[in-house]
């Protein structure tokens, strides 16, 4: 599969094309991290992050490729790993206990939100995640989820978001996250 075809499919939210890309460049991309004091897990995580950044940009129509996809991914992986190394260095200098507490609180909130997203129905979950993470337009979401039209997708998205909001607020109140 050529780069142009891959990009075309990815920009339409084709997850099979994403898998193809992941498989194709896995060795080359993970080697960047592995050769720079990174572990296998870190290498895989960095590569996945880079690939998802490419995914979001491609779907959002914000990607203008002036080089091969592999070159683009390579530079993203390199930048992400540099940031990670920088973060690791700063983390070592900071007060560990304070950081751990902040992380704990944040993680709790994220855990509750994830719980609530999981409680949503499959369609709601897809509409919201496709919209907020993938950046798919309401028209594309309607097509992808076989909804009647764009307006149906918009209404569904509004209702799903409201439902999620209520679920989260309820759980926050019981966990004393809200004053």
């Amino acid at each position, binding site marked *: 599969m050529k780069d142009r075809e891959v990009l075309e499919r990815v920009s339409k939210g084709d997850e099979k094309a994403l898998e193809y890309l992941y498989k194709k460049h896995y060795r080359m991309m993970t080697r960047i991290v592995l050769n720079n004091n990174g572990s296998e897990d870190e290498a895989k995580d960095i590569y996945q992050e880079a690939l998802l950044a490419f995914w979001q940009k491609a779907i959002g129509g914000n990607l203008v490729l002036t080089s091969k996809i592999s070159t683009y991914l390579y530079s993203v992986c390199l930048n992400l790993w540099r940031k990670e190394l920088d973060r690791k260095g700063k983390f070592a200098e900071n007060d560990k206990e304070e950081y751990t507490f902040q992380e704990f609180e944040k993680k709790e909130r994220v855990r509750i939100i994830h719980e609530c997203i999981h409680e949503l129905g499959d369609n709601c979950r897809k509409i919201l995640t496709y919209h907020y993470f993938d950046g798919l337009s309401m028209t594309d979401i309607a097509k992808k989820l076989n909804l009647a039209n764009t307006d149906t997708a918009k209404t569904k998205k509004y209702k799903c978001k409201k439902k999620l909001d209520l679920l989260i*607020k309820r759980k926050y109140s019981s966990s004393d996250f809200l004053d």
Partner: protein
Amino acid sequence: MSIQSEYTRLVNKYLDSNMSGSEKFIFEEQLTSDPLLKAEFDHQNEIINGLKEYRKTQLKTRLDNVTINPGILGVISQSATVKTLSYVVTSILVGTGSYMYFAGEEVVHVNLPAIESKLEFVNPETSPSPFGRQLDYRYTKTINPSPWIDLAEERPIVETLKEEANTIDFNVPEVKDDVAGDVIPEPDQILEKVITQNVPFTEAVKIDKVDIENVVTNRYKFHYKLDNNKLYLYGKFEASPYEIIEINSFQAKKLFFYYNGQYYRLYQDINDISPLIKIQDQKVITELNIIKSKG
């Protein structure tokens, strides 16, 4: 509609980028001054980030389930044949290493006597030669003023050679007999060395005729000089039979002078008139007597 609901609607409109320029400006101003609006904004942001994280985790899980084909090296390293081969090679390496390690010590140990036996020819002072016997001697470190025979440990050469044949040859360099350090060997010792090397006398020795001239002078009493195969004897020599014994070994030619029942060593490379020094070593004398009787 409650204030809370109104705030939620406004925040969602802003986050979905559905506000006009002026609406956006007013909202951002209000956000800095209204804590309730700010709290709702943070909450909605948190939900959106949660949704993003959720989706990211979902996609990452999907990617984790993708089977990555190992590279060519990975395929090779996972094949059963290569694994078996690697085990065999490792076993051979370990075995060879162990053999070299343990056998190395043994070889050195066995060859030490051989090295010693070769070194014993280095110093003429410390390598006495029992005349006419095939024996070698090991030099002991203690400098003992007692006769050389007390310092020696008798050990047949034949046995040593057998031992060497059973060991790996280390190519121990032979030490030349004439390398004797700073010690200038005595004439008798030089002869001893020649005999120690078991030179077959029947081949190496011959008695040659050398012209002899007696120079009567008061200046020298019992001296000699060798010049162009002619022996000049300085002093009062009786008209008794003279005899010159020449020993040709593979290294050098040695001359001995027999006069009046005594043997003297003659040096050809000395240009000056030198005194005749009597050979006192009984074994050398015995050997010279044998040669003389054969000649």
